[in-house]
C-alpha cells in the first residue's frame, strides 16, 4: 500500500464488515423476539392450566 496511487480498493472488506455488524445485531434482535414468543406461549399454557383448575 506504500507506493499506491489513490485509495486502495477495499470495498469488499467494507461490505463484509457491515454485513457482520448488521447481521449480528439483527440475529440478536431475532433471538430476543423468539425468546419472548416462547415465554408468551408458556404463559398462555399456564393461564389455561389455571383456568382448568379454577
Amino acid at each position, binding site marked *: *500500500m506504500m507506493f*499506491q496511487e*489513490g*485509495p*486502495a*480498493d*477495499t*470495498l469488499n*472488506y*467494507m461490505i*463484509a*464488515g*457491515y454485513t*457482520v*455488524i448488521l447481521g*449480528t*445485531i439483527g440475529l*440478536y*434482535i431475532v433471538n*430476543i423476539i423468539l*425468546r*419472548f414468543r416462547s*415465554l*408468551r406461549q*408458556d*404463559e398462555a399454557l*399456564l393461564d389455561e*392450566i*389455571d383456568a382448568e*383448575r379454577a
Partner: protein
Amino acid sequence: MERIPKALIVLTWLTSAVFVVALYLVLFWAPQEAIMGDVQRVFYFHVAAGWVGGLAFLVTAIVGGIYLARGEQRWDRIAVASVEIGVVFTFINIVTGSIWARPIWNTWWTWDPRLVTATIMLLIYIAYIMLRQGIEDPDRRARFGAVYGIVGFISVPLTFLSIRIFRTIHPIVVGGSDPTALGAFNMTADMRVAFFFSLFTFTLIYVTLLWHRLRLQHLAEKIEERKLTALSA
C-alpha cells in the same frame, strides 16, 4: 400479558431512525480515506461497538456493587442483561477489527496486545454467562455474578489502555498513535461527525436493547415462579 411501555415503543422507533441516519453518515457523508479506501468506514461502527462493550461491562460492575450492598434481585437482572449485550457488541468489535486488518495489516489476526486483551475480555464475559447457568440458587447466582462482574471488569480498562501502554501496531485514532502503528489516519471534520454520531447511536441502541432484555428477564422469572407454583399445587 404485560404491554410494552409507550416510552419503550417510542425509544425503539427513535433508535431505528437514528441508526439509519448513522448508516448514511458513515457510508455516504464521511469522505473516503485517502490510503485505506472504503474499509476505513468499518472503523466508525467498530469503535462504537467496542464502546458499547466497555459500557455494558461497566454497568454490570456498578450494578454488581449495588446488588452486594442491597441484595435486591433487580440489580442482578440488569447485570445479566448488560453482559449479554456487551458480549454481542464486543464480538462485533473483534470481528470487524479482523476484517479491517486483512487489507491493512495483511493478516486476519496477529498477537497484538489490543487484540489479545479484547479477546480475553470477551472470553471472560462468555464464561460469566455460562457459569451463571450452572448455579441453581438465585441468591448465590446473583452474588457470584456480582463478584465476577466486578473482578472481570479489570479486563475492560486493560483492553482500553493496552494500545497506550504496550508497543503495538494497533492505531490510536483519538489521541495520537505509536509511530509503529499501521493504519493510523487523521480524522477530517466530516469523519469526526460520523464518528461521534456513531458513538451516540450505539449508546442509544444499548439503552434500547437493555430495556427490552430486562423485560424479557422479568417475564422469564415470572413464568419460572408460576411453573414452580403449578408443580407444587
